């Protein structure tokens, strides 16, 4: 167990493993995404209430779900890097931020586009939408903070602290926003929840969610590998690697 942690902490090992992992996970993710999206886009029958616009769900929901999970990945990595002083956890945290931000952005945009035909508006202050917006700000905050530091060693730690504080707060924020929304429940239709998803739509949806998870992992690892090289530039193994890469 500890030896495993130890290994995780060792850059060359992580670099090698992530490389071999990417080699088969990346194509898999790509294929899954291709199948899932085209399935949802072209091969399912339209929703009886929303017509074809619901096909956006096959991106919207997976991105939203993965974006949420992504914040916890980032925060846990930050915590580990602070508590156990594991450098690679720090790398993971830094790598997770842009990926999560991009997915959150997608969830918001696709949702917003979806909202136009379904509710006749680009934007509503629904609870989940609002918390998603806040999540985007949390992600961007981490990125901006790191960018703002000249001394990257300090910057990474600062981000870890911020991410950690964010984790403590996210449940509170979510609960409070949910509850705030329930306070002034608008007269119009209840947005989520009763969208009864027909089983024929479920399979492609699950496939898409799985595909997005896989894609997230790939992007995360790829970002980590770059950061690892940058940090280990003074070590023998990186110099060898660079020599080979010629």
């Amino acid at each position, binding site marked *: 167990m500890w030896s495993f942690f130890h290994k995780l902490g060792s850059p060359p090992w992580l670099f090698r493993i992530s490389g071999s992992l990417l080699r088969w996970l990346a194509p898999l993710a790509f294929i899954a995404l291709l199948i899932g999206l085209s399935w949802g886009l072209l091969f399912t029958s339209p929703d009886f209430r929303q017509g074809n616009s619901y096909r956006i769900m096959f991106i919207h929901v997976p991105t939203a779900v993965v974006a949420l999970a992504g914040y916890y990945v980032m925060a846990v990595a930050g915590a580990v890097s602070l508590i156990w002083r594991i450098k690679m956890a720090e790398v993971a945290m830094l790598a997770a931020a842009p990926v999560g931000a991009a997915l959150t952005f997608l969830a918001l945009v696709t949702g917003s586009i979806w909202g136009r035909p379904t509710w006749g508006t680009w934007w509503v202050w629904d609870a989940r939408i609002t918390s998603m917006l806040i999540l985007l700000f949390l992600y961007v905050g981490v990125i901006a903070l790191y960018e703002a*530091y000249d001394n990257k060693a300090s910057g990474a730690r*600062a981000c870890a602290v911020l991410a950690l504080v964010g984790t403590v*707060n996210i449940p509170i924020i979510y609960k409070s926003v949910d509850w705030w929304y329930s306070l002034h429940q608008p007269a119009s239709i209840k947005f989520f929840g009763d969208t009864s998803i027909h089983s024929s739509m479920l399979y492609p949806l699950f496939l898409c969610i799985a595909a997005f998870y896989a894609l997230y992992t790939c992007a995360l690892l790829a970002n980590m590998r770059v950061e690892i090289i940058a940090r280990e530039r003074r070590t023998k193994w990186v110099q060898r690697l660079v020599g080979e890469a010629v």
Partner: protein
Amino acid sequence: MSSGQQGNDVSLATLLLLILRRQLLLSLRRPVEVAQPLLFFSLVLLMFPLGIGPTAERLAPFAAGALWIVALLANLLAVEGIFRSDFEDGSLDQLLLSPQPIYFLIMPYLFAHWLSTGGLLALCSPIFAYGLALNSAGTPVLMASLLLGAGVMTIVGALGAALTVGLNRGGMLITLLIMPLYVPVLIFGVAGVNAAIAGQSAVPFLSLLAGLFFAALALGPLAIGAALRIGADN
């Protein structure tokens, strides 16, 4: 070594009192900076009648929200500089070097800032509440919630200030860092006042705020201390 022990001999209480006096004196030396949140407060509240017409029945339902938003913005304005000048003139280094636990040394900073923003606003809020035709039933709850909420916002804001203290352009970044964390405070605060107006009990909301406050008070200074050590190292 004598020096070390000596350093610890000093009772922590006297030291905290000393720092507190320092902070208060500093804020008294620039009265307008202290008054600025209030000024801003009154200026903004001038806007709301403009937006929705000055009649009481139109203003009243929004009064609580408006007051709370402004309090939040005022706090945001002030908190950014809580550590800045000490960093720039090197006093912060002294603080970080002192043998006493940084956890406590931060407290006076927070307390002084809380007094000069939250305390002040809470004190004056009844006047503004009257100006916005807030149902008088809500006023005491408003004051209490502002006091508690300002505490949380001060601690969270100080964390943001500490994280950005080393960067010679903190101004807008800090907003991005701390505003999301202000959200629950705002929601509970407004809800409490509105509940009181509606004749329900505001206790649950106040106790929620109190919970947030004490949680922040327990954990906040730890994070702030760590953040200061990091920020000062840039």
